[in-house]
C-alpha cells in the first residue's frame, strides 16, 4: 500500500489544493521516502497525479470538498484537515492514532473526535 502526505516546511501542507510537494511512502517501509513535486494549477491534476503514482491513502491539510470527493471517486482514501510535524503525523497514522485531536487542524477537532473525519 502506498500513502502520500502533502508537505510544507516539514509540516503537513495547510491547503491540499495549492500544495507543491508530496511525500510518497510505501506503508511497510520503516522510514519516510520520496519527496516529489505535485503538478501546479488545477488541483484535479494533483489528484490524478497521485492516482498515477498508485497512492491508496492521502494525508493532507485542508482540502475543498469537491477535490476530496474527486479523490474518493478515484479510490484514494483521504485523511483531511490533518496538522502537525511530518514525522509525528506519519507515526500517528501507522499507530492508528491520527484521529487524536492534536493532529487535527483548528476548527476540525470536535468533528474528528466524533467521526474520525471533518464535515
Amino acid at each position, binding site marked *: 500500500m502506498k500513502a502520500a502526505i502533502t508537505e510544507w516546511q516539514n509540516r503537513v501542507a*495547510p*491547503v491540499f489544493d495549492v500544495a507543491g510537494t508530496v511525500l510518497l511512502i510505501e506503508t511497510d517501509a520503516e522510514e519516510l521516502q520520496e519527496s516529489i513535486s505535485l503538478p501546479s494549477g488545477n488541483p484535479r491534476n494533483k489528484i490524478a497525479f497521485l492516482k498515477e503514482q498508485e497512492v491508496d491513502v492521502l494525508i493532507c*491539510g485542508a482540502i475543498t470538498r469537491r477535490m476530496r470527493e474527486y479523490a474518493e471517486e478515484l479510490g484514494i482514501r483521504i485523511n483531511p484537515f490533518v496538522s502537525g510535524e511530518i514525522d509525528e503525523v506519519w507515526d500517528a497514522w501507522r499507530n492508528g492514532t491520527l484521529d487524536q485531536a492534536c493532529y487535527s487542524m483548528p476548527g476540525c477537532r470536535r468533528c474528528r473526535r466524533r467521526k474520525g473525519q471533518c464535515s
Partner: protein
Amino acid sequence: MSTDSPATTQAILESISDGVFTVDDDWRITSFNRAAEIITGVPREEAMGQPCSEVFRSSMCEGACALRKTLETGQSMIAHPCFLVNAEGERIPASVSTAVLKDENGKVIGGVETFRDLSELETLRKQISGRYTLGDLVSHSRAMQPVFEMTSSVANSDITALIHGDTGTGKELLARAIHGMSSRAGKPFVAINCAALPDTLLESELFGYKKGAFTGAVQDREGRFAQAKNGTIFLDEIGEISPAVQVRLLRVLQERTYEPLGSNETRRSEARIIAATHRDLAALVESGEFREDLFYRINVIRIDLPPLRDRKEDLPLLVNHFIERFNRIHNKAIEGLSIGANSLLMAHNWPGNVRELENMIERAFVLCNGTKIEIRHLPQELQGSAPVTAASSVPDIGTARRSAEAQAIFQTLEKNNFNRLATAKELGIHKTTLYRKIKALGLTLPK
C-alpha cells in the same frame, strides 16, 4: 471609556464584518476576532497560539503569503485576492490586506491581517454580468443555468447521460465538457453520429469486426467502443438507430459486453456512454420505434439544451466568442458588428442555433475587410430579401417579417440620425409604437 482604550478597540474589532487576526514573530495567532471565527469556521480558543497557515488555510499561505511579504518589506498589502478553505471544506473567495504590527515604542511585534468574505459579492457578480463557460460553451443566460449546474454533477459520476437539444445547440460540446470535467478527462473521447451511417456500417463502426466478417473486411478492425477504452463514447442522434443496433447497444449498457462482427470473442467495454438526440425519445417509444428498455437505460439523467431563440441575451457573448476565435484563425482584427448587423442578428429566429451563428460569423469574416461586420456581410436571408431558391433556404414567415421590419426601422433611424420622432413620422407609426417595436426586435441603438 475613552475612545482609544484597548476595550474600545476590542469592541470595534468584534463588531466589524471583516475578519482580523494578528500573529507574533513565530507566525502564531495572537488575536482573532468574531468575524474571523465566522468566515474560517474556527473558534477563537482553537485558533489562538496556532500557526496562522493552519487556521487561515488560504491559497496564498504556502507560496505567496501576503503577511510574510509585508513583514519582510514593511509594505502593507491591500485587497489581495485569494481563497480560503473553511472547516467544512468550502472554498471561500476572499480579499486580504496586511500591515506590520508595532508596539507603543515602534518595535515590530508581528503582523496583522484583515480579510473579507467575497462569497456574496462573487455570486452577485455572476448574477449581474457573469460569463459562464463550460468547455467551449459560453452563456450568461438564465435558460442555460440548469445546464451548467447539472453538468458538474453529471461529470462527477459515471452514469449514462442523455443530452436533448435541437440541431446546432452544442450537444457534442456539452458532452466534451462533461468528459473534460470527469475523472476520465485524460482518456479518449470518441464521438459518432449514428444518423450519418447506414445500419450495417454503424454496427461495424461501433463494435469493430474480424477479418472475413463480410466482403471487404480484409483485416481486423477495432470499433469505437474499443477506441474509447475507459474514456467516454458519445452517441449522437441515438434516436435514429435501427432496432437491431438498439438490441446490441442495450446489451453493452446492461452487461458492458459486446462481440465484434464475425467474432465469438466477448469484449468488455469500460467506456462511459453519453447519448444525444434532437428527437422526443419518449414519443418514439410510444410509437414503437425505440425500445423502452433502452430508453430507460439511456435516460438516467437528461440535460436539455435550450435553443438559441430562447437565450438571445447570449448573442453578444457568443458573437464576441466567435469573433475572438476567428480573428485568431484567420489572422484578422475584426472588432465586432455594426449596430445594424447586430440588430438583424437579434431579430433572427436562429433555427440552426449556435452552429448557424458560428457559420454566419465565419462567412462574414471571409467577406469583411474592415474592422466591423456590416449588414452587407450577412447572408441574404437575414437581410430579408433572400432570393428563394430551395426549400431549405426559406425562413419561416415570422422570421422573415421580423427581419424585414428590423431592417426597415433601422435604416429609417439611420437616415434620421437616430431621431425617434422623425423616424416614427417617416414610417407612419406612432412614437410609442416605434419604441415598442425597437424593444421587441431587440434593436440596439447608439446612446
